[in-house]
């Protein structure tokens, strides 16, 4: 399965904790197409440890959020901010073991202001270890330029890469 080229990759130095290959302290997630949406395989080292041998639960939430958020960006061609995130932990994730996070979108509803998505984290046997649901508020990059440390040219470049529907 081939990796999805994210729109953020047009920024040479983007540092997203979840998906940037340029952030040595980040998760460096790589997304692939999945029949339900997108997936991200991961195997976390001890820098992400909680109890000895156990992945920090906050990281599980970050991975679910990242996978759902990028799915929304890819499907809706709009950047979006997380409004709420709800996580259910079933079994702890082990340091050094392989997992996959699969995210899917909830169906669009007429007049909705928010996008909703769900995710699950599966171990190598396909057993569900955690689930998540979240809501996202879409925004245009140009509308939040004062909050972003990007130049006008970078915003224009990124907007083109996103294929924003307006703005």
């Amino acid at each position, binding site marked *: 399965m081939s990796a999805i080229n994210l729109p953020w990759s047009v920024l040479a130095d983007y540092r997203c904790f979840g998906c940037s290959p340029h952030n040595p302290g980040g998760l460096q997630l790589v997304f692939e197409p999945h029949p339900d949406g997108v997936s991200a395989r991961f195997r976390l080292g001890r820098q992400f440890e909680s109890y000895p041998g156990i992945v920090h639960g906050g990281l599980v939430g970050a991975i679910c959020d990242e996978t759902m958020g990028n799915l929304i960006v890819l499907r809706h061609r709009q950047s979006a901010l997380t409004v709420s995130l709800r996580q259910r932990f079933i079994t702890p994730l082990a340091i050094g073991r392989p997992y996959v996070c699969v995210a899917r979108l909830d169906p669009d509803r007429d007049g909705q202001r928010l996008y909703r998505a769900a995710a699950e984290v599966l171990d190598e046997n396909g057993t*569900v270890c955690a*689930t998540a*649901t979240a809501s996202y508020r879409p925004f245009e990059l140009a509308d939040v330029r004062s909050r972003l440390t990007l130049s006008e040219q970078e915003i224009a470049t990124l907007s083109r890469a996103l294929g924003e529907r307006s703005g």
Partner: protein
Amino acid sequence: MTAPGTDNAGDDIVATVTAIAATELGLPAASLRPDADLREIEGMDSVKVLRMIAKIEQAYDIELDDEVVFGLSSVAGTAGAVRQALGEQP
């Protein structure tokens, strides 16, 4: 996701919860009585109960309160919690 059984009687919710519980246990659905104590069933443990709850939440697109989840003991009780979460009469 389209929630199964939301257009029909509560029996459908019981049937769906039973099917999900049976899948977790690797048992035929017909062997699970609605009033059976889930934690007393051989092979069931707290992780399987939690996984069952996660699958039910996904199937119905609902969020069950944790206090409710950790108080659930039977298929019928779980179905009742689903009904309440869906806004139906228990």
